[in-house]
């Protein structure tokens, strides 16, 4: 008969009897296998435990049809980690119990509460940040050295990688940056118009939009979007390459990671991000123009013709310059985190998150530094 069908239906059974010699006797029968036991564990375990307290008790397992390690382990445990004195067992089931005779090591004691732990965590955090800083600097130094070598031997410059990266990080990001830029332009223009109307200073909308978008919002918006979009992709890509040993394969072939992976990405982002910034600026200004016209009745021609006078061109160069620096930083941070990923899935997730958070933070910090350094530039 099909054993599978019978074992599926079978249940573990136990019955308490008094033997001919007057000693209590527990008769086990049916299927003592994990699949049958798991549902009835709560009911069976206490009964077994209660019976096990009687030392003279007899265990009769001769009625058991099938028993597996889980069933045997359950009995073994009720017997206190050894074989009970009086057990009747089918010979073919002996083997299952032999396995159990392994010394089980004690479970590790739960860790004590350590009051110094927060302090220790803080210290670790500080050292981790320092460690990241040093590693970032090392990668940057290596990239600079490699770049210098490449300048002397231009035939080795990985043009193909650079252009592929420009396409991925730049051309493919135009849609999302346009959408976000346009909406921010509309919102900014609309809110500013409300205030300007109160003072009758309608014409200043051009200056406000021009300076804020070209100098600040355009570069920062584009950088944050690219950090989220391309930064995470770079980190994940390098991380997976670590997991699949592709990085090791490259190292073995004598291809430095910095030349083939990091440098092209940094160069590509340094080229594509300023262009994306320019594009975001333009679309945001268009959004602002449309909102200004509906709210304040300022015509497109007026807006466009006053823009060059209202916003000194230095602001544009500053914005583009920021784009270059942000691009380099995003690529550097993303590559750095990508190379640190360990070959497991959790590390991949944490590394990618850290990469994006860090690069956005770095972008905003550097933007603040720019604001301080260039406070006299482009603002009349």
């Amino acid at each position, binding site marked *: 008969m099909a054993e599978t069908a019978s074992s599926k239906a079978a249940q573990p059974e136990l019955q308490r009897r008094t033997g001919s010699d007057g000693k209590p006797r527990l008769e086990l029968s049916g299927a003592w296998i994990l699949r049958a036991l798991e549902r009835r564990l709560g009911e069976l375990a206490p009964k077994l435990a209660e019976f096990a307290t009687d030392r003279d008790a007899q265990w009769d397992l001769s009625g058991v049809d099938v028993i597996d*390690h889980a069933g045997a382990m359950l009995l073994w445990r009720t017997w206190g980690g050894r074989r009970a004195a009086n057990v009747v067992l089918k010979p073919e089931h002996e083997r299952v119990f032999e396995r159990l005779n392994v010394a089980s090591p004690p479970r590790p004691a739960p860790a004590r509460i350590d009051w110094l732990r927060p302090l220790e965590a803080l210290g670790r955090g500080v050292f981790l940040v320092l460690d990241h800083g040093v590693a970032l600097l090392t990668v940057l130094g290596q990239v600079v050295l490699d770049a210098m070598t490449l300048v002397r031997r231009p035939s080795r410059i990985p043009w193909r990688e650079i252009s592929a990266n420009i396409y991925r990080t730049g051309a493919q990001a135009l849609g999302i940056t346009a959408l976000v830029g346009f909406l921010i332009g509309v919102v900014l223009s609309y809110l500013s118009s409300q205030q300007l109307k109160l003072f009758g200073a309608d014409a200043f909308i051009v200056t406000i939009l021009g300076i804020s978008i070209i100098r600040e919002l355009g570069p920062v918006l584009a950088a944050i979007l690219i950090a989220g979009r391309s930064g995470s992709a770079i980190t994940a890509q390098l991380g997976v390459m670590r997991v699949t040993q592709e990085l090791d394969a490259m190292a073995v072939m004598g291809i430095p990671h910095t030349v083939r992976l990091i440098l092209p990405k940094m160069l590509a982002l340094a080229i594509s991000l300023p262009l994306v910034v320019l594009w975001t600026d333009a679309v945001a200004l268009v959004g602002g123009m449309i909102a200004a016209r509906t709210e304040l009745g300022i015509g497109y021609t007026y807006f466009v013709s006053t823009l060059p006078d209202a916003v000194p061109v230095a602001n544009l160069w500053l914005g583009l310059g920021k784009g270059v620096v942000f691009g380099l930083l995003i690529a550097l941070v993303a590559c750095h985190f990508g190379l640190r990923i360990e070959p497991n899935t959790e590390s991949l997730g944490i590394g990618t998150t850290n990469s994006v958070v860090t690069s956005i933070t770095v972008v905003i910090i550097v933007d603040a530094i720019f604001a301080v350094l260039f406070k006299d530039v482009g603002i009349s």
Partner: protein
Amino acid sequence: MTTAPIIEIRNLSTRFGDFVVHRDISLMVRPGEIMSLVGGSGSGKTTLLRQMLGLERPASGEVRVFGVSLHGDDTDAVRRLRNRWGMLFQEGALFSALTVFDNVALPLRELRTLDEQLIHDLVLMKLDMVGIEARHAVKMPSDLSGGMVKRVALARALALEPELVFLDEPTAGLDPDRSESFVRLIKELHEELNLTVVMVTHDLDTLVALSHRVAVLCEQRLVIVGTLEEVVKNTHPFICNFFMGERGRRALDAVKDVVLVT
């Protein structure tokens, strides 16, 4: 005595786009046997294995495991089925974020009825069964050697006391010594736990040492299903190449006596 087959494949065909992998394949696996699937690279052995596990859906045909159709409507029955089989993936497929102990404990914890102490004892027993010492239980999979990963993966596959075990290239990537001991381990466990085993392998030594029956996949069809002796006698060119090459002869020579006696 008639026994219901554990796995029953009927008229199965597989296509990837225009590329036909299997054409009208039928196969039965009997309870308690070790069935090996062999075939050249790209002949769809692993695909067939994945179809037996319900991971992939054939273009047509039916796969029944323990009498339940894997691609039928009874999803509840298929879900219950998943506690009755175990799978050893080629690369182990251990959860890299969990320790060795937690990897093996995971299927047991998923039952949600066992207490932690029993799980602890069961996991250590399973690890001991596959020859992993308890001190390795706290390690992460990335800290293990290839052989240990396979052993831990086998322990995880056996955690729920399955009746049916699938092995995908169980000895690939192991050194001869380890692969020999792994083969011995599988053999022991097969006898001890009364398992049915379906195995995909390229390794002739493993094949010869373990298989009760061999199914040869070639040119989209099952060329032959039978004992090793019957398969070797077949004159299909693939089989000749596979078994009668130098490596094949060596592997067969080693067990000639056994094959002749049985």
